[in-house]
């Protein structure tokens, strides 16, 4: 039985603009299926309808037309949210609570028993790397830490599906790296992940499948490697290649009617450079 984790059918959402005769079509005729166990990325520029789609899936916003389901249960039903964790865009929690208190609060809302609550709070804090900050108030948390407590809160009830709205936005590269590692970790545990982002490079390495939204319309969808592969090109990365060898390869290529398009030194990504430099600096201190 392959029941989709998330099924969105013919979804349209229109926001009326008060005092004016016009409307905002935030999402238009959207069809989407997220299979259990996959990491699905909803991409698109700001205002393209990503957050609206996610909120509709979670039953926080009503639909104008169409319907959404989570594991076969209509999003309008409260019980559809039983196996789901949600991290909203730039979340903000009660800042007078400590990390552990926050998680206990959300655990109670999920109906965790007293005994499992204590165990889960410890586990989840460990998982997101906030065990040391557990008794500190959230007013003293950094943006990255808030994002991680948000993630912890979404995971408190061992959900089967977790929905993340811009999980890496506004977080520094190291924090964003940690969040992406966590997502990979979740996938390994068999948890379905649906995330939205406008930071394409960061999504690229974690998503199995992506959909691209523009103006509320799904303009592209598919497996990541298929979407971005250039069918008739191949890359070759060599170490310690002599000028001679390179020259020979070039001649061979011309002989077999292939065309050499680019010839350049390999580079590292700026992100990797940044992470290397900052972690070295840290370990020196």
């Amino acid at each position, binding site marked *: 039985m392959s029941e989709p984790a998330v099924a969105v059918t013919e979804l349209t959402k229109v926001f009326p603009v008060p005092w004016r005769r016009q409307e905002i079509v935030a999402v238009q005729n959207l069809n989407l299926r997220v299979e259990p166990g996959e990491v699905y990325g909803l991409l698109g520029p700001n205002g393209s309808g990503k957050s609206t789609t996610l909120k509709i899936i979670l039953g*926080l916003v009503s639909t104008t037309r169409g319907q959404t389901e989570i*594991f076969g249960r209509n999003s309008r039903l409260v019980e559809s949210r*039983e196996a789901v964790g*949600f991290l*909203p865009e730039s*979340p903000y*929690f009660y800042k007078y609570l400590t990390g552990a208190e926050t998680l206990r609060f959300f655990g109670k*809302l*999920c109906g965790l028993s007293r005994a499992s609550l204590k165990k889960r709070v410890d586990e989840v804090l460990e998982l997101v790397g906030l065990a040391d900050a557990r008794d500190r108030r959230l007013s003293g948390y950094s943006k990255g830490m808030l994002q991680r407590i948000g993630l912890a809160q979404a995971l408190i009830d061992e959900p089967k599906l977790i929905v993340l709205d811009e999980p890496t936005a506004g977080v520094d590269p190291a924090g964003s790296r940690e969040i992406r590692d966590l997502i990979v970790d979740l996938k390994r545990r068999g948890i379905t992940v649906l995330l939205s982002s406008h930071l394409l490079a960061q999504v690229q390495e974690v998503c199995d499948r992506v959909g691209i939204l523009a103006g509320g319309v799904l303009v592209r969808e598919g497996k990541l490697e298929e979407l971005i592969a250039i069918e008739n090109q191949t890359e070759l990365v060599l170490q310690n290649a002599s000028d001679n060898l390179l020259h020979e390869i070039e001649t061979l290529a011309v002989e077999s009617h292939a065309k050499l398009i680019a010839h350049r030194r390999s580079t590292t990504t700026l992100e990797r450079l940044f992470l290397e430099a900052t972690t070295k600096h840290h370990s020196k201190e």
Partner: protein
Amino acid sequence: MIEARHRRFSFVRVLAIATNTFTELTRLKVFHVLLIFALLLIGSSVFMARFSFQQEFQILKDVALGAMSIFTSLLAVVATARLIPQDIEDRTIYTILAKPVARFEYLIGKLAGVLLLLAIGTLAMGAMFLIVLYACEQTVLHETARQTMSPEQLNDALRAVRASALNADIVPCIALIYIKACLLGALTLFVSTFATTSVFTTVVMVFIYFIGHLQATAREYWLQQSGAGWITRTFLALVALIFPDLQAFNLVDGIIAGAAIPLAFFVKTAALGIFYGAIYTLLAGVVFYGKEL
């Protein structure tokens, strides 16, 4: 398919939201300022001018119960008005309602937090009031005992002092003040479900507060003036439905006059207040159910 273990209404969830709301509210500066101010006002009623002991107790009760009434009402409105807009602004409402929490449970939890805060506030003010009243009673008793009169006269005098100071009628009086504040809290919650800002909610509530207090007098006056045409009657009935008759919860005048409060009257008024509060909570639930977050 996941097995359904969801319960329609969970006391644990409501309690979690209620205690959290209570913590949130006790951290508000407004709460501390209002409470301290009310306590000072009640305490200072000791120093009011007096001519006879009856008058002294009258003024004391008038000031203290009046202060309690105003401050609990103010607290109810100010504390409730910000709850939902704040949660929406901070997006904490998304995280809460993305859990298997029904919207009505969220509302009930928020309201329960306010009622708990109001209970604490009322108890603190009530305790202050009783202490002040007791202290005054003791002073007057001492003064009376020093006067020269026959033992019978003295006994009568002392009894008269006791009767007009601390008596059992204070309890229903304070209970109704609390119920009135709860009612206002529920009404504020209702208004805040469709208001866009907490300022709007507060302004509307101030308006309702005054109409609610004045309408009984206005109604009597109108009915006397223009007879009782059915248009007038319908209009007044509508007003009474929308704006609760807040004056009905003021027993201060009654007990100051020394008249005992009949139990039936107290029960009727209390039931009315609870009924109004429940209606407003239900209405808030209906509006909030369809609200776009």
